[in-house]
């Protein structure tokens, strides 16, 4: 693997709330190589989006308690000040959202919004140059009439068109890392497919790494090279996409795979019984144990992260037992 652009180590994140302290992320370790496409999968409410927000420093500083390291290109984002983060956001790290139409300001034209982002980070110095850059960038995302799109307001464009504008906006300053929060989930599947293809082509062209959050394993297989599986704020398993999807080692990964609806199957997908635990008082040790068919007393201790194959690691006592036997 190439040198990491993003290296998260021992990240703990809690929020102080009225009900008490909510332990959202626990000992998260995650690495994204330069130019690598990494997926982060898990159920809704398992902390994926919070992790993206933590990377960008978007969480309320008055409520968050964050320890550990988020190294981006040599800078520790956990300790970075707001002004430093602001200079990084949108230029060296940017983000693509679920619903493009609500991510664009309804009262300004696309031209206004694109040139604003370009000028803010000095990618172009004059309005003319920024507009020229915006026009050519829109052509790159397969928009045939950039002039018409630039003169439009977001509500005059389709969801797919807004998605391309959003991608352009995120990539126009040539970031080193793009965070994607379930891009296109608010759109229909064909547009989502387009979105993924565009993102893969464009990020490869500019050499940007991608960390994509999704609950869709189909998206993972198609888009990513490497995958992290997150459950209730802990990384339970990670490995190269093909290896991990072919031979999942963690019971949670296996359950996630079994829950995918298939076109060729005749049986309904099997849902995972139960729900993601309360973060105020999560189960001790392995957080998946209340829902795990293989749960045993040893699960009350934090499970060790063990290597099962090249680059493939899993945090589960089942595997530790196998190694011991």
């Amino acid at each position, binding site marked *: 693997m190439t040198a990491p652009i993003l290296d998260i180590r021992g990240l703990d994140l809690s929020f102080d709330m009225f009900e008490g302290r909510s332990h959202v992320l626990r000992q998260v370790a995650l690495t994204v190589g330069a130019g690598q496409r990494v997926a982060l999968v898990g159920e809704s409410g398992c902390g994926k989006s919070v992790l993206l927000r933590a990377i*960008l420093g978007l969480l309320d500083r008055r409520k968050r308690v964050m320890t550990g390291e988020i190294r981006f290109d040599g800078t520790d984002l956990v300790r970075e000040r707001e002004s430093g983060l602001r200079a990084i956001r949108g230029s060296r790290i940017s983000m693509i959202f679920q619903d493009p139409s609500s991510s*664009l*300001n309804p009262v*300004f034209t696309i031209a*206004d919004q694109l*040139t604003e982002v370009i000028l803010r980070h000095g990618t172009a110095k004059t309005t003319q140059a920024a507009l020229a850059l915006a026009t050519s960038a829109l052509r790159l995302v397969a928009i045939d009439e950039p002039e018409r799109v630039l003169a439009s307001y977001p509500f005059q464009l389709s969801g797919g068109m807004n998605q391309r504008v959003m991608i352009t906006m995120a990539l126009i300053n040539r970031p080193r890392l793009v965070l994607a929060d379930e891009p296109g989930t608010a759109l229909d599947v064909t547009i989502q497919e387009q979105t993924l293809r565009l993102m893969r082509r464009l990020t490869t062209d500019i050499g940007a790494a991608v960390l994509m959050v999704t609950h869709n394993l189909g998206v993972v297989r198609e888009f990513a090279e490497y995958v992290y599986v997150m459950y209730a704020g802990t990384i339970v398993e990670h490995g190269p996409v093909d290896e991990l999807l072919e031979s999942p080692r963690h019971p949670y990964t296996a359950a996630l795979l079994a829950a995918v609806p298939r076109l060729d199957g005749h049986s309904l997908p099997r849902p995972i019984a139960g729900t993601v635990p309360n973060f105020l008082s999560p189960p001790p040790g392995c957080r998946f144990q209340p829902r795990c068919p293989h749960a045993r007393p040893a699960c009350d201790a934090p499970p060790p992260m063990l290597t099962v194959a090249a680059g493939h690691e899993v945090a589960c006592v089942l595997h530790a037992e196998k190694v011991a036997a």
Partner: protein
Amino acid sequence: MSPRRMNPARISLRRLLHNRHWYRFSRNSLSLVGLLMVLTITLAALFAPWVAPYPGNAGPGVDFAHASQPPSRAHWFGTDISGRDELSRVIFGYRVSLSVGVIVLAIAVPIGVVVGLLAGYYRDWVEMVLMRVTDVFLSVPPLVLALAILGVLAPSLRNAMLAIAAMWWPWYARLIFNITRTLTGQGYVVAAKVLGASDAHILFVEILPNCMASLLTKITLDIGFVILTAASLGFLGLGVQAPTPELGSMVAEGAQNLPDLWWMSVFPGLGILVAVLGFNLLGDGLRDLMDVEV
């Protein structure tokens, strides 16, 4: 299309004049009546020296030969006890009323907007401090507050406007606070932050323009009420001082001569009514058009 940022006021003006919006606005005949009233009094006030039949009667002066005349062809609204033409004085009175409406809101709105934006965006202790101060102002009956302020300061037009502005900004603070609170969670505000926008940019470029529809509607509705409040203060003798014609003080002057010289109070009173009604109907029309709550 200009790539530069649109002036928010221009957006709304353009939205208003866009054919489809004008069509929807003009479907409501009451809105059109309101617009007509507002345009009439505004033009009359602007061109008062040319429109008024006796422009010389705007100031001091006596003409006892024509004193206390009932409405006639020469003096449509009659004349007052000094022989001054009431119609001319009502027209000049609109100058004072409209400038009070504009100036008071020009002071109150920016204060309220900034307070509301800051409190709604930063929440926490900023909200606590700013909105509690706002609540204190809101808890005192407006006219009482204005009377108290004028009790300390000398009664004059300038002080009356300051007093009214002091009681008016909290409503804008509350309006903008509520909108900002909702908009802060919007995708485009988060997106702007993610793309490296500063707080000032988020407040004034992302959030404020999206408050404009509500803001303009409320301003339109409020001009009428400010005029009414200014007239109330004038009626109590706390606003404009004689001999400048002001609708409220004209009603008060006429009231001393009721019922004989009824035209002296009825016509300035109707003048106030037309102004308040006009701005209200127009504001209601805008509210329906822009589909906002104020």
